[in-house]
């Protein structure tokens, strides 16, 4: 997930770290510890690696010191806001082959789009680009699932207006779930932009509320 997935999906060109989501159980944690040991990974922040922190929703941050890893950072999480359980994420994952014999298991695009709805400016930029990239790599005749995904998740006013023009009935149906699409049907990009901003603000507030107790816990751990 994170920056590396955004690169592969087309939303970013570069990322300085790697973020992974794991299944938080005893057996998997033992496997992870062995993998981290082989990377000579050092925990560089609070909390330490333990099931209780991962299950609460904290990220555990590492730096890898194995020669060839160039001290890359690795962030590990097991529970994310706006994401289902690891088992569901795994079932819905996308496997991408980048070279002969090399492939990566990515959080699916729809799941990643939800995960990126945070309190951070940079995540909203990623979220917008994730859906744009998917839209611009579309086949000539997108199917219902693709159309619904774009209507539900695009954050680019002119693309929403374009879709509403081409698929007015579908847009009207999805508008029951996403009312700002009414502005897309009217072709009002300015009003749509304002409505998108309000939609974003609701998610930002929800993310701040979600993280408030976790941040308090991080501060406490940091000063222990």
């Amino acid at each position, binding site marked *: 997930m994170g920056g590396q997935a955004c690169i592969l999906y087309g939303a970013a060109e570069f990322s*300085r770290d790697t973020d992974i989501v794991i299944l938080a159980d005893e057996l998997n944690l033992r496997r992870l510890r062995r993998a981290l040991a082989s990377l000579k990974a050092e925990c560089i922040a609070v909390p330490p690696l333990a099931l209780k922190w991962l299950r609460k929703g904290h990220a555990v941050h590492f730096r890898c010191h194995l020669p060839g890893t160039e001290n*890359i950072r690795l962030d590990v999480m097991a529970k994310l806001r706006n994401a289902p359980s690891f088992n569901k994420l795994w079932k819905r994952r996308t496997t991408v082959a980048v*070279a002969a014999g090399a492939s990566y298991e990515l959080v699916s695009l729809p799941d990643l789009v939800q995960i990126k709805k945070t309190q951070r400016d940079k995540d909203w930029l990623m979220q917008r680009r994730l859906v744009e990239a998917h839209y611009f790599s579309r086949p000539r005749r997108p199917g219902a699932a693709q159309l619904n995904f774009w209507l539900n998740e695009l954050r680019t006013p002119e693309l929403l207006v374009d879709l509403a023009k081409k698929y007015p009935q579908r847009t009207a149906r999805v508008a029951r779930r996403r009312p700002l699409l009414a502005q897309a049907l009217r072709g009002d990009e300015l009003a749509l932009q304002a409505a998108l901003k309000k939609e974003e603000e609701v998610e930002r507030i929800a993310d701040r509320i979600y993280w408030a107790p976790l941040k308090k816990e991080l501060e406490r751990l940091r000063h222990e």
Partner: protein
Amino acid sequence: MKKRLPISTIEDEWLDWYRLTPAQRWKETQKLWAFFIALGGSLDPEPDSQSPFNSAYLRRPSSAHGRPGLHIIRRSRV
């Protein structure tokens, strides 16, 4: 009356990137990575006051010239 945005919010320079395959993007990002490392780019997390992880870091390693990133060879007076 339809109200258009004064300029498009679609960043044209991204359209070429969107049209690459994941494997092509991966190849390009590897080049960027090599270039970044060769220039001495820092892999430390950027301070991000919006990130809930900002308070997780125990200390930020100090870096050359007092700030993370590149080795400056020549600079203006500013």
